[in-house]
């Protein structure tokens, strides 16, 4: 028995163990023969289109019922292709003018579109070539009277191996039998990968043409942790993977139960878990992973990767989209945070010797007020569509905050004068990233509705160490007593004024820092969506009062390393 391993891209997490079913989709390439009867040929094409349309309607309804409207949209796209005048007219011309037989006319016409689309730079557009191929194969099957492979009628557990799975194949997969799939082609964003994630079955995509040599019937293991497919594993690997699989499934079931649960510690303290997002597409995922809000919406993405500034309309519609998606849940939008390591080439900013200590974020906006005012107007206009909170980054002194608030108030008044609706209850907060603010948070607290601690910058400025400098990497110490003490000062100052404090840095989702932050009294933890459920699970198993004591003790230890050990010790004894 020979064990072989193929590496690919883990498109949907998990471990699957089952026998392989390999689908060899021999591609039918019709010959360029002349039609015996042009009229009959055209008639057959039309019938094949009608039959394909009925198929897709069925798949569309099926997908909608099983996976929801969003996933079913792919098939609306297919119906749109079936209805396309250029495709139909192209086929008709190929038959009537060039005299080709129906099969070749279909193949040649569709191929023109497929070849253009498959060479697109944009990956999503490239994926449309798969849609056209998928639908063309289906029409072709009807033309030829050949049955399409039916993945919905499998009778035993299996792992599907295929060159690529078409959207209609994946939509029909019966997850009671299909335990996972492996494809030779594809990427994390291909249809099959997206489908695998929604069906929650493990999948490896883009594993290379060699996987097509796997034989139907052999045992396969998909292990997405290692991004690999193991063919014919020996008994020890099989045993190890089986137990890993069970642990994975159990843990996933436990985590999934937490999605709609509030995060309440064992002794009854509730905190809010929110997501940091960098683009609009992240919102759906954040919601599905239990985000109770957006704790940091990085508005920079609207400005980056472009050739000019985004317009007010453009920004307005993006903010509105995010707010509407989140409904009543809070969305904290940070105003433009540019400079430092984030550049906007089209603004051609002068080079600075110390960009992290330079004209960045709010400082830049106060100097370039036109751009700032445009953003604030867009935010204010969008505010009526949800629960918006505006946050100013990189404040060092009170004057900056007051000036930013003044500009915001002016823009609000202008909109009101123009009879444009603005939400009257927008919370306005600021980031705490500079030690000057943390140590005098009590002086800032009366002027804001909330603070959000940006730990990456706060650590960098507190330690006076550039976080991009690898030699100084040891100075990036989230669990240093000075950082914990600064966090505590901010929270204490806010509590006195009845304001809330969030944290939107990596630290909030760190399993060693989170217990201490709970203990110190942080109200909102904002992190990458993928960390939310595990953080939620952790916090729900902790006793806040105990961790308040632990945090107090930790802050008396002189070195990070000692704090790390102390936390680890008490986390283990908690289990």
């Amino acid at each position, binding site marked *: 028995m020979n064990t072989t391993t193929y590496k690919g891209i883990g498109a949907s997490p998990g471990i699957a163990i089952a026998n392989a079913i390999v689908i060899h989709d021999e591609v039918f390439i019709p010959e360029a023969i002349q039609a015996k009867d042009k009229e009959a040929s055209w008639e057959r094409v039309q019938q094949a289109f009608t039959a394909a349309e009925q198929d897709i309607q069925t798949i569309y309804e099926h997908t909608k019922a099983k996976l929801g409207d969003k996933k079913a949209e792919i098939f609306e796209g297919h119906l749109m292709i079936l209805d396309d005048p250029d495709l139909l007219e192209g086929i008709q011309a190929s038959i009537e003018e060039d005299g080709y037989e129906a099969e070749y006319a279909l193949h040649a016409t569709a191929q023109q579109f497929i070849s253009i689309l498959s060479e697109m730079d944009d990956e999503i557009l490239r994926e*449309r070539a798969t849609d056209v191929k998928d639908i063309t194969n289906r029409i072709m099957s009807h033309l030829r009277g050949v049955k399409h492979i039916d993945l919905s009628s499998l009778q035993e557990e299996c792992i599907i191996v295929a060159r690529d799975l078409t959207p209609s194949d994946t939509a029909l997969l019966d997850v009671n039998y299909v335990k996972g799939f492996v494809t030779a082609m594809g990427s994390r964003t291909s249809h099959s990968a997206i489908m695998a994630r929604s069906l929650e079955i493990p999948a490896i995509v883009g594993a290379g043409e060699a996987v097509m040599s796997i034989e139907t019937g052999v045992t396969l293991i998909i292990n997405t942790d290692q991004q690999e497919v193991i063919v014919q594993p020996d008994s020890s690997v099989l045993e190890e993977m089986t137990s890993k699989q069970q642990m994975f499934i159990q843990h996933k079931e436990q985590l999934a139960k937490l999605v709609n649960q509030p995060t309440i510690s064992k002794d009854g303290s509730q905190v809010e878990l929110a997501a940091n997002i960098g683009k609009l597409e992240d919102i759906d995922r954040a919601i599905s992973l239990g985000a109770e809000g957006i704790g940091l919406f990085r508005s920079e993405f609207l400005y980056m990767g*472009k050739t000019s500034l985004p317009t007010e309309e*453009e920004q307005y519609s993006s903010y509105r989209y995010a707010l509407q998606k989140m409904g009543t849940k809070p969305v904290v939008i940070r105003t433009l945070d540019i400079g430092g390591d984030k550049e906007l080439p089209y603004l051609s900013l002068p080079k600075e010797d110390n960009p992290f200590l330079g004209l960045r974020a709010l400082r830049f906006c106060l100097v370039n007020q036109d751009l700032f005012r445009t953003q604030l107007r867009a935010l204010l206009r969008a505010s009526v569509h949800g629960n918006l909170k505006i946050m100013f980054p990189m404040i060092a002194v009170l004057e900056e905050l007051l000036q930013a608030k003044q500009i915001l108030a002016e823009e609000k008044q202008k909109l009101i004068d123009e009879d444009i609706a603005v939400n009257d209850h927008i919370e306005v907060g600021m980031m705490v990233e500079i030690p000057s603010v943390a140590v005098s948070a009590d002086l800032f607290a009366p002027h804001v509705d909330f603070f959000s601690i940006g730990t990456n910058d706060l650590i960098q400025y507190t330690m006076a160490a550039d976080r991009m400098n690898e030699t100084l990497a040891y100075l990036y110490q989230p669990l240093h007593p000075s950082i914990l003490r600064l966090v505590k000062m901010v929270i204490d100052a806010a509590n006195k004024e009845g304001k809330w404090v969030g944290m939107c840095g990596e630290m909030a989702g760190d399993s060693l820092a989170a217990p201490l932050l709970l203990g110190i009294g942080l109200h909102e933890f904002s992190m990458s969506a993928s960390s939310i459920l595990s953080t939620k699970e952790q916090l729900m198993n902790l006793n806040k009062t105990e961790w308040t004591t632990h945090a107090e003790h930790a802050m008396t230890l002189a070195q990070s390393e000692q704090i790390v050990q102390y936390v680890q010790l008490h986390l283990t004894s908690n289990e």
Partner: protein
Amino acid sequence: MISQTFTIINPTGFHVRPTKTFVQLASSFPCKITLHCNGKKANGKSSLSMLTLGLTTNSEVLLETDGDQEQEALKALGEVLTSLHD
């Protein structure tokens, strides 16, 4: 025949759904509707043809309408191009 240039602002580009909305509206007008982008042109009533333009965020598109209701079509379709969200 009249024409005007528009910029695609949809942050995720111009994919199936925006194309569908565009094509549906384009098909409701009797005039000929053509889009030009990066030296390529496409029939505004065909989604496949439109997808081959490879429109993404910030693409500049010349929209051309020719025939009955060309004014109305240019105005309505221009709005679709610049306001769509995916």
